[in-house]
Each structure stands twice: as C-alpha cells, then as structure tokens.
C-alpha cells in the first residue's frame, strides 16, 4: 500500500510538503505592462489557494472556477492601480471574496442545505479517492463559512494561522479557535460515518 502510494505520488514527491507562498509586490507593475511571464508566475504561485478559497465560499466547483478566472482578469485590469501595502495575497483574496459574494447574490445561496443533496451532487466526481471526496464534502457541508475558508486555506495552501489571519483580515485568536473547532466537527462527523482511517 505504501509502495503504491509512493508510485502514484512520483510526480509530486513533496505533495504534502507545503511551499511557502511569497508574492513580491513588484510583480504587479510587470503584469500591468502585459508581462506574460510575470502573470504566469503569479498564477502558478497562487491559483490553488484562490480556487480553494472560492470553493470554500461557493461550495461548487464550477462557480469556483468562474471566480478563479474572473479574479485573474481583474488582477490584470487593476494591476497598474495596485498600491504596495505589504500584503499582495490579501489583495488577491479580497478580489476573490468580492467576486464570490457577488456570484452568490446573483445565483442565490448554495442549494446544498443538507448532506443528502450534497452527496448526490456529482460536481465532485473529479475527486477519484472516495475518502478524499468524503472529507471534502463533509467540510463543505457541516462547516461554517469562516471555518471552511480557514481549514481549506490551511490544508491546501499551507498558510500559517497568522498568514491566514492577515490575508482574511481576522484576528489570530479567531483563526485558531475556528480552525480547531472545524477539525473537531469534521472528526466527529467522519467518526459518525464510520470513517476511522488514521
């Protein structure tokens, strides 16, 4: 089992090892000048984080993908207006949040009001691993908005709690408490479902 796992993960041997995401504010003026390399550099560095953040708000893969696309188009359109404030990722997340909220208002709130409907949704059919799918669906179903945002950013992007607090405009104490509460909820939910993989 372990050998199989290692084979499948050959392409990403450090899959679970997070790289610290650092964005240099000087990249925005280059993007404003239509520098493709700069744009690609920014995209590759941040798109997973932006997608997971959008997914935590919208709880729908397609909507999250739309917001992801609009986010980077907005960045290209406003890169020349960016004022260095020391937190470029926070600006990107702000754009993502505003677009996601706007989309929620447009299409209505998520219809996944209960677990049964979420389980029947095939949106997450691209997730090949059943356990992974179960955990993702549980996170998107039982957690509150900020809990989803925090746990997904921490899990996917590898942001530290302090970075999450800075990027989302929350206090460190709030981030820590919501994170641990979210984990407890998920543990309990998965245990109740008979999922005890350690």
């Amino acid at each position: 089992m372990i050998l199989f796992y290692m084979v499948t993960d050959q392409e990403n041997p450090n899959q679970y090892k997070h790289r610290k995401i650092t964005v240099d504010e000087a990249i925005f003026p280059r993007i404003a000048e239509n520098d493709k390399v700069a744009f690609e550099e920014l995209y590759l560095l941040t798109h997973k984080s932006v997608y997971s953040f959008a997914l935590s708000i919208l709880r729908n893969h397609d909507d999250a993908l739309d917001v992801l696309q609009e986010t980077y188009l907005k960045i290209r359109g406003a890169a020349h207006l960016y004022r260095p404030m020391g937190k470029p990722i926070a600006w990107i997340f702000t754009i993502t949040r505003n677009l996601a909220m706007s989309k929620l208002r447009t299409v209505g709130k998520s219809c996944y009001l209960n677990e049964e409907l979420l389980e029947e949704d095939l949106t997450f059919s691209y997730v090949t691993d059943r356990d992974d799918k179960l955990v993702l669906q549980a996170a998107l179903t039982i957690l509150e908005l900020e809990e989803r945002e925090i746990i997904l950013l921490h899990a996917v992007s590898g942001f530290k709690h302090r970075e999450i607090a800075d990027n989302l405009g929350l206090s460190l104490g709030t981030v820590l408490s919501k994170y641990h509460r979210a984990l407890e909820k998920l543990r309990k939910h998965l245990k109740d479902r008979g999922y005890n993989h350690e």
Partner: protein
Amino acid sequence: MNRKRIENSLKDAVNCAPQLPVEELFTMPYIKMTEHDYITKQIETKKNSNIRQFTTAVACSLLLLVLTIGWYIQNRMPDSIITLDVNPSIEIITNHKDNVISVNALNEDAREIIGDNFSAKTLEDTVELLVSSLVEHNFISTGKNTVLLTVMNNNNKKADEIMTRMGTVINDSLTERNIMPVILSQIIDEEADRAELAKTYHVSEGKMELILDMISDHNELSIDTLVNLSMEELLKLARHYHMDLSKYLSLYNNAIIPAQEDAGDTQKDADKNILEDSKETDQNDSGLNEDNPSEATEDSEANDDLKEDNLDEEDKDYDLFEEKPDEDVREQMDKELDDNDKNSDDDDRDNDDRDNDNPDEDNANDGLIDDSDEDNQDIDKHQGEGDREEDSEAEPDDENAEEEKEIYDNGEGDEEDRVIYGDGEDAEEDTEDSLEDND
C-alpha cells in the same frame, strides 16, 4: 481521523479539480480599469490599525501622566516646612492640605526622636508625637523647656495660622506633662544662602536664622560657637548679651499666656526656675550683683520693651517674660534692695503695688531704680496712674514719703499703715509689704 489525514484528504481533493490553463487565461480579454471598484478596492491593512492602537496607547499614557502629575501636585508637592528645634532639629514638610508628606531628622539627636517608622497623617498629630518623643528622650523637661518653632510658607497668612496652631499644640502637649514651655517662633522666607549654611552645619533654617540674628550685632560670636548649643543655651546667651528677642516671642505672648495663667502654682515654680537660672547666669557672667548692690538684679517683673541699649547695667537684669514674679521672690528682692537703697525699695514697692493693681499692665520698670536714667520716663508710661517715676532721685520719693507721713500724721491710715492709692483689694497686700519695708 487525525488532523493531518483530514488536511491531506482536503488537499488531494482540491488538487484533483480541473484548472484553467494559464496560456488560455492570458489570452482572455480583460478591462483595464481607470480606478478601483468595489471588487478591487484595497482595504486598509492592520498596519494602519496598529497606528491607531499606538495612538490610543500614547493618549492613555498621556492621560495617566496628567493624572499622576495632578495627584502629585495635590498630595505630594511641598507647601509648608515646619521645623522644631530643641537641640534635636526636626523638619516637617506638609502639602497644601496640611497633611504631612515627610518628617526629616536634621541632626543625629533628631534621628533618635523620629525613629525608624514614624508615620502620622495630620500636622497636629505629628507635632504632638514629636513633642512626646522629645519629652520621653529627655530633650525637653522642666529645666530644658525652650522650643524654637519655625514656619516657611509663601503665603504669610497661612504661615501665621500654622504657627499659631502648632504653638498651641506644643504648649498644650507640654503643659499636660507639667512642663511650662518657652516657645520661640518665627516665620521665615526661603533664602538660598541660609539654606546652604543650615545644610552645612546640620541645623534647621530656623535655628540658623536665630544664630545669624544673634551674631549680627556681636562680632565675638560665630556660627561655629553657637551651632551646637541647645535652644536653652542659646536663650541664656541671648539674655546675657541682652539681645532683642521680641520678634520671637509674639506667639508666646498671644497664645501661651492664657494657658500659663491657668497653670497656677506650676507656673509660679517654672517662673522661679527661670528667674533663678537667670540670676545664676548673671552672677556667673558679670558679678554685677556684687559690685553694684543697688542694682535690681532680682526683679522678676518682665519688661515689654526689650531694647536695652539705653539702660544701665543694673536695669538689665530682668526676666524676659511678662509673668508676675511670685511673692517669695519679690520679697527677697525687696529685702535686698532695702539693704542697699531705701529709695529703691520704695520704688519697688510702688511698682509692685501697681502690678498688683493692674496685673496686665506692663510692669517692666519694677526695680529700675536708677533715677538718673532719663529713659525711666519711657518706663514710667507703663505704670499706673499715680505712679510717676521722676527723673530726680529725691523728689518722687520725698513726695511719697511725705504723703505717707501725712497720712500717718492725720491718722487717716489704718493701724496697718494702709496705703491709700491703689485698689482696695490690693490694699492688704500692699500693707503687708509696707510693714516689711518699715521693719
């Protein structure tokens, strides 16, 4: 399921999601904005809120500082400095509410008085405790009863009020212990040079003021010779040099006399002690009594006019205080004078009579026998009606003698040779004196 497993599952699930190719994204049209809209608007970072927190912290600190300064001004800023000098010199500093801020020992003896843990809130309590301690340590006793009270305050009215109050406290505290105090008091201003001197010699500014006053007219005296003397000794020295200490006696005259009048026999004993000391000092110092028996050295009447420059030697040996001498001493004086000069005795008797008649009068001139002294005229002003001291030696005496003789001859006098003048109440007393004199 542990935390790490959960997070890994989430990460794997997200990573499985199809993503947009970046090349395709780059080719998509976009709108170049002229200004931020509500989506791209940059929010103030926590750095600005940090500035707000810093500003709030600074404002709170400033407020705390202002409150602290206000409290200090109200409670800890010195307003008055009161010093007590016996031989220990003690300094009391109070705030504008007359609450004691600190009590300081200015010399070694004073440290013994104050001790290690001296705490009293009000000025009255502090002075009372200090006086008690001075008595317990035998710095004040019946024979050593002189206290110098000094007050320093920019407000003269307040200084005067404090001086009066504290003088009363000291007097009451000591009279309860059957000690009749001699309280010298003064109000002084801040003076840097005197403060410097006082600090150098480890005395209070009040005592230094007195010492400077004493040496100002007497070159033979110096600070070094006087600084270690007790108040008792300084007072005796002042008397010896016939110094004008009237400015130090105002409190005593105003506040203490009523208490002393009530002291009765105790007061008389105290007076006797003072007078005896004075007598002893005079005898030891000058021997004037031996050389000039006509001098009224034993006159116990106080002289209100302490300016003695124009008085002869024999006139200078009188008590500084205004209390009436007790009868024993007066009799003794009369006897001595009678041996030396009959006229002088008559004058004394006359003066004594008037003292009895008018106890509140200035009786400074009893015993001032020297008829040749023109200044006796000034002293005469203080005497009662009918008692006019004249310049010439013979005339008033002759007149009085003649008057008496006339009375006797006419049989107007009673069997005890009653003296007509004066109040009837005192006639008996006068008569007794007359009888003694005539013996």
